């Protein structure tokens, strides 16, 4: 059983907020955001191959990677890490190659909850409501693929 994702897409302001708890220490969660060999194991939608050009999770660093879909279609993402504070906080920009120049700001807060548990809080700021809705919509393709995979697993009685 996985922890629930609290997602809020407020009306009238171009934000997306989310909150997710982990049954692991904050240092582990932070590390999984920092090390490229861990990032490739979870950041992409399932069924997508992730190729990192570079991923330098530190203040002033930058990143660029490619998600390749099941039919071979590439999706490019890039951005800059504005602020990174170990086990605490990060601000990064995020740009999808399919929507050039529509850049969002991602705030991430890593919280220690004690007893080896932690919480990740995300706050995304888009340049406009249209950008938020258009950009988030572009993630739908991966979501659809994943949705069907999960349905397959569910039907075959596998653990989701």
């Amino acid at each position, binding site marked *: 059983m996985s922890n629930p994702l609290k997602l809020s897409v407020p009306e009238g302001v171009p934000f997306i907020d989310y909150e997710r708890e982990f049954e692991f220490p904050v240092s582990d969660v932070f590390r999984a955001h920092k090390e490229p060999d861990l990032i490739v194991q979870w950041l992409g*939608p399932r069924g997508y191959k992730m190729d990192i050009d570079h991923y330098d999770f530190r203040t002033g660093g930058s990143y660029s990677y490619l998600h390749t879909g099941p039919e071979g279609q590439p999706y490019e993402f890039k951005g800059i890490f504005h602020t990174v504070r170990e086990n605490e906080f990060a601000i990064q920009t995020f740009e999808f190659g399919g929507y050039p120049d529509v850049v969002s700001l991602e705030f991430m807060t890593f919280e220690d909850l004690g007893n080896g548990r932690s919480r990740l809080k995300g706050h995304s700021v888009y340049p406009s409501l249209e950008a938020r809705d258009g950009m988030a919509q572009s993630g739908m393709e991966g979501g659809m693929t994943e949705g069907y995979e999960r349905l397959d697993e569910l039907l075959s009685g596998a653990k989701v």
Partner: protein
Amino acid sequence: MSSDDAPLDSAFMALADPVRRSIIARLSRGPATVNELAEPFAITKQAVSKHIQVLEQAQLVTRTRDAQRRPVHLNPARLEALTAWIDQYRLVREGQFRGLDSVLQSRAAARGRQEKDPS
């Protein structure tokens, strides 16, 4: 953005106005006439009519032609199209974090084995 997004764009534009959102909220409880819809607002019936026209153009509401009252109806299919992307976004995020869970799980398991086996 593809041309497929144009109807979605006009729907989001239509919903950017608080009066029009209130009208949608009222219509979710059932059809209403322009007079009934104008009642809670301190604006003219003409202004409310204009708002309804915008909603109509965005296909968020429909008006029946037959009756004298011409009540305004909500178009639920259009509203569902608006919220579909939020559900998809949620699916992608949830999948991502479950992936992160299993990465953390396998690392913790590997660490546990190392502690038990100090070779």
